[in-house]
């Protein structure tokens, strides 16, 4: 067993034990914090697929996170107001069912990523960063000016959406749902990373020339990765909105894109479990520093600066060394 495997197991255990302990000692706030970390981790895993494996520095992942959030908000809004989402060309009703909402969020994230990716991937480097940022802003301003769904004020839902057989309003049960989804996403992404696709994608990040020389086109790899990435981040967005029972344009803002990036960087770019560590560390910092000082962003900025300038591998690079080759 490598150090990385031990670290992965330890991390996942910790993320499970803390909320369970909090549940035992009746500390619902801690459970909510852990749930936030889990959801942020999923969002980060989504971005990591594009950024870490594909080298696509997307500064617009808030778009997919927010779309997932709005998928939840809009469906639940129509369900709680008993209005139809659309009557033409087909009648679409709102819903309060989590699995249906997840599917819609995944679909919305994937579709948006497919369109944004197809346009943005025509460019490279710094253009790509700025264009993804700009597309994110485009959706942000669209949401602000779209008064039917709350505009700047966002949308609230009264009751958390339902999952068959569970009481989702109970923090620990909602946590369990999110944790299970995190596990599924992690295991899937771990497999994808080792698959033919993953292997070619990671090669494209290292050398596009190489991928072309072995007869493959980087563009299709990138677009596929970007689309899956948007889908995963969209799912995280739906969960986040459900956690807060609220969605607003803030979820689409460029700061959100920056934060999702921070999860990936703090944990370690390109490491499958990196975003989990990054998100957990982010929540820990936010809670401990945010509690002691209202200016916690200064500390966050200083830590981020330190990581970028002096510890580029993030937490995983620091604790587990460089990535092991998997053969």
């Amino acid at each position, binding site marked *: 067993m490598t150090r990385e495997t031990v670290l992965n197991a330890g991390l996942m255990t910790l993320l499970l034990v803390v909320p369970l302990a909090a549940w035992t000692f009746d500390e619902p706030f801690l459970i909510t914090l852990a749930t936030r970390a889990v959801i942020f981790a999923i969002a980060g895993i989504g971005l990591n697929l594009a950024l870490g494996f594909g080298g696509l*520095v997307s500064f617009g992942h808030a778009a997919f996170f927010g779309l997932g959030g709005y998928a939840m908000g809009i469906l639940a809004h129509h369900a709680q107001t008993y209005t139809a989402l659309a009557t033409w060309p087909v009648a679409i009703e709102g819903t309060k069912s989590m699995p249906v909402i997840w599917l819609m969020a995944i679909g919305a994230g994937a579709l948006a990523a497919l369109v944004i990716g197809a346009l943005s991937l*025509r460019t490279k480097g710094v*253009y790509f*960063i*700025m264009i993804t940022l*700009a597309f994110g802003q485009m959706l942000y301003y669209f949401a602000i000016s779209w008064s039917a769904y709350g505009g700047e004020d966002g949308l609230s839902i009264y009751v958390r959406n339902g999952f068959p057989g569970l009481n989702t309003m109970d923090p620990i049960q909602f946590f369990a749902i999110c944790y299970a989804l995190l596990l599924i996403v992690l295991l899937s992404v771990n497999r994808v990373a080792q698959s033919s696709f993953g292997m070619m994608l990671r090669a494209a990040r290292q050398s596009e020339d190489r991928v072309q020389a072995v007869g493959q086109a980087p563009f299709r790899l990138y677009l596929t990765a970007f689309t899956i990435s948007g889908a995963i981040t969209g799912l995280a967005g739906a969960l986040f909105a459900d956690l807060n029972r609220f969605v607003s344009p803030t979820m689409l803002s*460029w700061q959100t894109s920056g934060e999702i990036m921070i999860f990936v960087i703090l944990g370690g770019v390109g490491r499958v479990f990196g975003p989990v560590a990054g998100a957990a560390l982010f929540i820990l910092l936010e809670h401990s520093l945010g509690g002691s000082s209202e200016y916690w962003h*200064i500390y966050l900025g200083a830590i981020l600066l330190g990581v970028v300038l002096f510890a580029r591998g993030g937490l995983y690079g620091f604790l587990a060394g460089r990535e092991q080759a998997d053969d």
Partner: protein
Amino acid sequence: MSWILLAEQTLNGLQFGVMLFLMAAGLTLIFGVMGLINLAHGSLYMIGAFAAAGTAAATGSFLLALAASLAAAAIAGVVIEVTVIRRLYDRDHLDQVLATFALILILSEGTRWIFGSFPLFLEVPDYLSGTVTLPLGVEYSRYRLSLIVVGLLVALGLFWMIARTRVGIRIRAGENDREMIGALGVDISRLYTLVFALGAALAGLAGALIGAIQSVQVGMGEPVLILAFVVIVIGGIGSIKGAFIGALLIGLTDTLGRFLLPKLFSLFLEPSAASSVGASLASMSIYILMAGVLLVRPRGLFGGT
């Protein structure tokens, strides 16, 4: 629709455009010469605005306030360049984005810590307030007209500097070949600091000038920063000319879109729907413009091939 209103909105678009140019010029110079993507450029805009508001409150002089904005932003630029930015030139874009994002967090919270969360206001001086009557009977704000003039003068000055002066020659050399300029015996790190300070000063000036129309508050820089990104992406990163054309395009598209689109939709939609759809589309118009430009020219209008 009145033509006078349209003329006024066009001037507003022009004014917005030249101010965007002040931001975009620095960004595109810094990218062209040093290959650096600087998210903290919006923070320099904010610093300029705060320095101006503080100075105006203390001295009552608008010109001193502008001078302070230039100086404060340039000094902040030098400090940032020497302490942080310098370490990023050889790094990849991801590191640059993250480190300058970290700088935004630090600078924004730092400013909030010093000045508090309440917005400050910068008064337009008497000699620039009121309106002037332009040909064809268009009444227009004297201050906004001054912004257009100042913006155009700065643009002319920049073009002149880059085409004619020694610093300009070095900047162009640096854009073409970073090793060559080192070989010419130019102190490259001083040139970099200088270019960064120049870009910072322009951003600071823009912040102060705009601060007198809007309020001066933490977070004011980032929306402008993102628009400036759109500008230089459209214009072609590294091209001052592209930044200028792009800035005017964005300024006019955004302003006229907000003015005209709701009217356009009111021709065939009921008023409330028209204003809602029009406003939504208008807020997206510049991004649609950007996507369109990139479809045709992935490296922007003046970004080469």
